């Protein structure tokens, strides 16, 4: 749970554990307005959760930037030859 700072009027009723469970829906903008408000309120007073969220987002962005594995021309030809052979044998080719 985030700590209340001196003089702070608004308390968050989310714990850091609950925050972690909500990250996916938060990033997909799927939280209800009330829960989203609570989530953002917690972030304002909890640097641990701010940092955790930042590293979670970094992990996702690295995943998304992984280069696609291209199909090598030789493999492509192998597969096409295989398919031509097998579909011809089935007697249903056009």
């Amino acid at each position, binding site marked *: *749970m985030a700590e209340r700072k001196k003089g702070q009027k608004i308390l968050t009723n989310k*714990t*850091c*554990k*609950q925050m*972690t*469970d909500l*990250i*996916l*829906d*938060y*990033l*997909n*903008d799927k939280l209800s307005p009330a829960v989203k408000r609570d989530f953002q309120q917690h972030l304002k007073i909890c*640097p*641990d*959760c*701010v*940092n*955790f969220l*930042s*590293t*979670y*987002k*970094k*992990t*996702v*962005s*690295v*995943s*998304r*930037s*992984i*280069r*696609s*594995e*291209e*199909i*090598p021309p030789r*493999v*492509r030809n*192998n*597969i*096409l030859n*295989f*398919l*031509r052979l*097998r*579909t*011809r044998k*089935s007697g*249903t*080719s*056009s």
Partner: protein
Amino acid sequence: MQSSFAVAGINRRDHTIMKESGYPAATKQAEPTINGSERVVNGSTRPSRTRKFDKEEAALIERLKAGDQQALETIFDLYSPKLYNVAHRILGEAADTEEAIQDVFLTAYRKAKTFRGDSQFSTWLYRLTINAALRRIRRSKKNKQVEYEEFLPKFQEDGHHLDRPVVDWSNALDENYAKREIQQLLNEALEQLKPIDKSVVVLSDLEGLCDKEIAAALAITVSAVKTRLHRARLFLRGKLAVRLGHSAA
């Protein structure tokens, strides 16, 4: 033969997440469109399926159902780049991937009549691909997966993070490693995921499918997709954190 129309069903989804988080745009891809022009496919500009595309795709599927070999080759040209990437990411072995993709398209040809259009055709093909890949993993004795627990966040009884302060290492990752090294780190971590979780991450974060499409491709619920995706991401995050010398917690 290269078809002129886009693989509209397997473009990246509109990532709401990007608006929220300021993620860098997913890899930009210029794909051929139905009229031969190109459009950028990334977070906010995902093309919608057009009526003409739907008609052309439907006609192609009908030809496939009738046993038209040329239709199979057109479908292969359209979908094999995406499906090969998915299979390769899940299997990690080029030879296994080639066999898996052979199976996918042969099955698509032979079982085309069982496709009833309840899902997008691309989702059906993804499902065949995941099944072919997972079947090979089950047969294989190679198993790199590890227990997740060590790399997941941990909390005190009152709900605080166990190891405090939590360090934001996101900038350090870019500063200490080249992009290629970071991807290598993540690839190694991906290989340690359970096959079904790896499939979810690949379809979501690498291919950009929405939760509903992933659920259909894996024959699991949307809720299960979200749970698996989140847990897998937490594990990957933990692996990166440990690699950088920080606590996964």
